[in-house]
């Protein structure tokens, strides 16, 4: 296959409907900016995540204080939860800011590709930190309630389901990460 034939073959490839695109261009949803791009939606999602994570810090302290009403308040667990949500929130703020920096109108394509892949890599790295940390927190919590066998049973069941789901998610992440490196 020479260059000319390759280009000819490329021109014959099946493509989308151009008429449909022109009609879509006139739609109110686009002309009034009612629609958001995938990138804007992604940035919004990270904003929601970090808002929830930061709100969880005081909420968790209150929640754990109530739980430990009959027990001695475990400050280590409380601080661990606060640290976990603070870390998660900071990570989401970082990703939100990096995604907001991507300007598809001005940046050259190679830079956009590099930024997008880098954001994805950091997202996976953060997930790989947060997933084991979440498991450690659950174990810590189980140790605090070691006197109540029903709570332990509940946690073990939840933990088994969680580990199964976590392993699946982890293998997906690794798969994604490998693809990004290639």
């Amino acid at each position, binding site marked *: *296959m020479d*260059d000319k034939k*390759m*280009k000819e*073959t*490329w*021109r*014959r*490839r*099946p*493509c*989308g*409907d*151009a*008429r*449909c*695109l*022109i009609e*879509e*261009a*006139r739609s109110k*949803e*686009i*002309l009034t*900016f009612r*629609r958001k*791009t*995938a*990138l804007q939606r*992604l940035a919004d999602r990270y904003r929601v995540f970090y808002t929830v994570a930061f709100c969880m810090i005081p909420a968790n302290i209150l929640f754990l204080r109530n739980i430990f009403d009959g027990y001695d308040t475990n400050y280590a667990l409380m601080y661990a939860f606060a640290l976990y949500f603070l870390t998660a929130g900071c990570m989401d703020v970082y990703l939100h800011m990096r995604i907001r920096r*991507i300007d*598809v*109108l001005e*940046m*050259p*394509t*190679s*830079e*956009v*590709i590099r*930024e*997008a*892949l880098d*954001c*994805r890599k950091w997202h996976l790295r953060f997930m790989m930190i947060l997933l084991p940390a979440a498991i450690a927190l659950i174990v810590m919590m189980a140790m605090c309630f070691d006197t109540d066998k029903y709570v332990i049973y509940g946690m073990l069941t939840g933990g088994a389901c969680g580990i199964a789901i976590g392993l699946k998610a982890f293998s997906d992440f690794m*798969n*994604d990460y490998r*693809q*990004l490196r*290639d």
Partner: protein
Amino acid sequence: MIYSNYHTVQSHTERLLPGLIDTTIRFCLAKAAEIRECMCAAFDRTQTTDIRREGYYLEIVERNADVISKICRSFATCDADYEDLRQDALLNIWRGVSGFRKDSGERTWIYRITLNTCVSTYRKRSRRKDTVSIDTTAQIAAEEYPEQDESVWLAAMVAQLPPMDHAIIEMWLDELSYDEIAGVMGMNRNTVATRIHRTKNYLKNKYQQTWMTKK
């Protein structure tokens, strides 16, 4: 003395005040009318600009509809993804049309915005593509569309490339010059040439493996 002065001031004020108030009111009304006229003119201008901008945007889209839909199709992993990409690309073109400088070339501008839209969010490859090898996917595509076999195979192969090579080879196949590709990608011309050469060889090898053995 103070008393008489007070009366003088008062009589002057009584005489001057209505005139002063009148003048102030007239001045304010005149200014208000002026501002209103200015605002109307600005509003008309904005409306005209908006109409002009919309017309220009539609013109650009009509001229490049084929390119936009082809790029979106080649980056999409499924039909829903294609529709999303198409709408995102249109939205970005509409957003950027007012800042578009004609000297940069409409064609390369369209390529840059559409490609940037397509590569800016990471898209997970479909499960089928994850588990089935590239050659098998191309083979399946060729079997499903026998009338377009080679072109479908080539499109499937290009879609499997890493985003950087995908974008570059797509522009090269669409007959953009090396300089234009380098401009869109923000890369050195030599780097672009090297990447094109490498990808071309890869595609040619794959073609030999898939089609020559079949024939």
